[in-house]
């Protein structure tokens, strides 16, 4: 157990070998892996380990590929769909480690369902059950869990990351954990869209990592949206696989071949997006056979909560729908990984799950629906192991006296704080550029230029003047993270002068062979964007 002491002012000050930031599956797996290697581990989550993050409210299908010769073929097939940006070596490693951890779950007694032949079906994890189960495993492993302890910033001794600090928002005091290594498992950035898990997913880890000197990758891939009943939080596309779609006047929405659309997921989202830009769209799940209707209801019960509560029968009634923006949660951008142990290139800083750039796994297309949850299972494991190995190497070293907190925007503004720069307004201004379908689902050079100008001006205010006091400290920092992520996303999108996967440029519709590489962005206030053509062998190996 990490050592704990409360200082005179009642702030919490802990020592640990490994500090994990986050409370979703990747944080839980990182904490278990680090504790298993003998590290003293603390985990600080903004919310509650068990309910927070994108997995807990959902029902995640994993990318479950059992060992065997078939694996290479399965990976190869999936790679074909990634817009040439994924890396088959990482994909293979991921399915291998994820599979082992799925088996571990079944050994631990996670209540998986059975197939007709009685074998356990381990390829699907029901969110609330899975994350409640993982909380227990994390506690059993001896990890100190700090719920409702959002991290605000990383600490550095000049050479390496040596901990993090934040606020205990329910207890009302500050906290600091000194650690020999930190794992960022803070999830993606949903730009405050009202989706499942969305409130806490504000990209805080991206800003913290960038302030420490880490790079980000794939930030242009934020063009993924998922269908949901209008006004609801249920961004789960699966039931819309069996739907028809209609305009206000009742006319059907047609697919690319001119036939009425009978499946609204995957590439078909383009047609629905186009129609939604024109006006309201309605759907009906009328392509689902009765048996399937039953399975959908029983297997995806939260999808039916909005219908049941609004008094709609979705299999026979038309209901209004929307496309929810998902930022990097179902996009693929995030902190760039530089080695197999999920290191970031900043000594002592590791990354897992949606906080990491997932182009190596899924390229320019979304990893939602299978890849992302396997990635959380695997990358959490590697990052936890990597962090504990780093901690062991540093074990002899005493903490240097000169520990610096690294937080800037939203926390320590460059100029005088101004009360009229409010977190809520900053977030609204960023949302106006990065969530509307006609700006971000379908993009154009001219539109992106305009968005970029507006975001630069928002950023200047944030950088110079945004600061929150007391409970609003976290809000200000979240707004700063959202502003930074929006700015990186638009800048990267401008840089990618082509269309690829979820990055759809109406002015540049085709793929450009010269851009068949990742874009790496480095720096917070001043940043630079570089391609990775120097690593083409790795991309296609």
């Amino acid at each position, binding site marked *: 157990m990490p050592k704990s002491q409360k200082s005179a002012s009642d702030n919490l000050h802990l020592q640990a070998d490994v500090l994990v930031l986050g*409370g979703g599956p990747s944080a839980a797996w990182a904490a278990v892996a680090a504790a298993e290697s003998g590290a003293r581990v603390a985990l600080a989550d*903004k*919310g*509650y380990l*068990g*309910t*927070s*993050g994108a997995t*807990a*409210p959902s*029902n995640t*299908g994993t990318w479950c590929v059992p060992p065997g010769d078939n694996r290479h073929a399965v990976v190869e097939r999936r790679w074909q769909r990634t817009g040439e940006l994924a890396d088959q070596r990482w994909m293979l490693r991921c399915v291998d480690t994820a599979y082992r951890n799925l088996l571990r779950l079944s050994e631990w007694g*996670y*209540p*998986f*369902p*059975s*197939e007709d032949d009685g074998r356990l*079906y381990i*390829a*699907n994890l*029901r969110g*609330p*059950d*899975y994350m*409640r*189960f993982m909380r227990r495993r994390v506690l059993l492993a001896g990890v100190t869990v700090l*719920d*409702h302890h959002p991290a605000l910033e990383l600490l550095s001794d000049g050479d390496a990351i040596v901990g993090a600090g934040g606020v205990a*928002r*329910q207890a009302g005091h500050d906290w600091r954990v000194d650690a020999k290594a930190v794992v960022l498992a803070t999830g993606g950035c949903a730009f405050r869209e*009202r*989706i*499942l*898990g*969305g*409130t*806490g997913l504000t990209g805080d880890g991206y800003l913290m990592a960038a302030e420490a000197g880490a790079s980000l990758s794939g930030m242009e891939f934020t063009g993924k949206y998922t269908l949901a*009943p209008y*006004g*609801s*939080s249920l961004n789960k596309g*699966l039931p819309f*696989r069996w739907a028809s779609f209609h305009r206000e006047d009742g006319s059907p929405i047609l697919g690319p071949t001119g036939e009425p659309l009978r499946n609204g997921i995957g590439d078909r989202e383009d047609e629905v997006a186009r129609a939604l830009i024109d006006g309201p769209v309605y759907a009906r799940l009328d392509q689902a056979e009765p048996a*399937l209707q*039953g*399975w*959908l*209801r*029983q*297997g*995806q*019960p*939260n999808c*039916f*909560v*909005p219908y*049941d*509560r*609004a008094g709609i029968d979705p299999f026979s009634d038309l209901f209004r729908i929307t496309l929810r923006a998902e930022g990097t949660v179902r996009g693929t951008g995030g902190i760039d990984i530089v080695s197999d142990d999920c290191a970031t290139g900043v000594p002592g800083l590791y990354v897992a799950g949606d906080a990491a750039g997932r182009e190596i796994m899924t390229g320019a297309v979304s990893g939602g629906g299978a890849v992302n949850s396997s990635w959380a299972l695997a990358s959490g494991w590697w990052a936890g192991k990597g962090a504990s190995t780093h901690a062991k190497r540093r074990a002899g070293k005493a903490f240097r006296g000169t520990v610096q907190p690294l937080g800037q925007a939203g926390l320590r503004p460059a100029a005088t704080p101004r009360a009229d720069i409010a977190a809520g307004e900053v977030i609204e201004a960023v949302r106006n550029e990065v969530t509307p379908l006609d700006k971000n689902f379908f993009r154009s050079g001219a539109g992106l230029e305009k968005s970029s100008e507006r975001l630069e001006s928002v950023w200047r205010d944030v950088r110079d003047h945004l600061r929150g006091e007391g409970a609003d400290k976290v809000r200000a920092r979240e707004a700063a993270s959202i502003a930074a992520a929006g700015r990186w996303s638009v800048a990267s999108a401008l840089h990618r002068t082509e269309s690829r996967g979820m990055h759809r440029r109406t002015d540049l519709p085709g793929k450009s062979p010269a851009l068949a590489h990742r874009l790496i962005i480095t720096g917070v206030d001043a940043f630079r964007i570089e391609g990775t053509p120097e690593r083409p062998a790795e991309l296609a190996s």
Partner: protein
Amino acid sequence: MIEIVSATRCVECDICVKVCPTNVFDATEHGAPVIARQDDCQTCFLCEIYCPTDALYVAEFAEGPTGITEVEVEERLLFGSYARALGWARGKAGGSQFDPTHRIRVAQ
């Protein structure tokens, strides 16, 4: 969005205060928790399933309150309905072993 904490059902265990990932509730000195930061609610329905007495109601609309009343939620048997659909009961997990999602994935 979270709309109702039923004072008649609530046993003041403060579990919802602890488990709500977005810190929506505040515990009170004597009584049921209050909805203190409603706009932070992410409409995840998880407080409902952790509540041991089905005392919470989260309406389907995520952008703002609908104004639904406790009487209507009782009459339409909506308290605890999501927990029942999952197979959770009295705040305890259950039912994942009966999840037929694999059949949906095959059909897909």
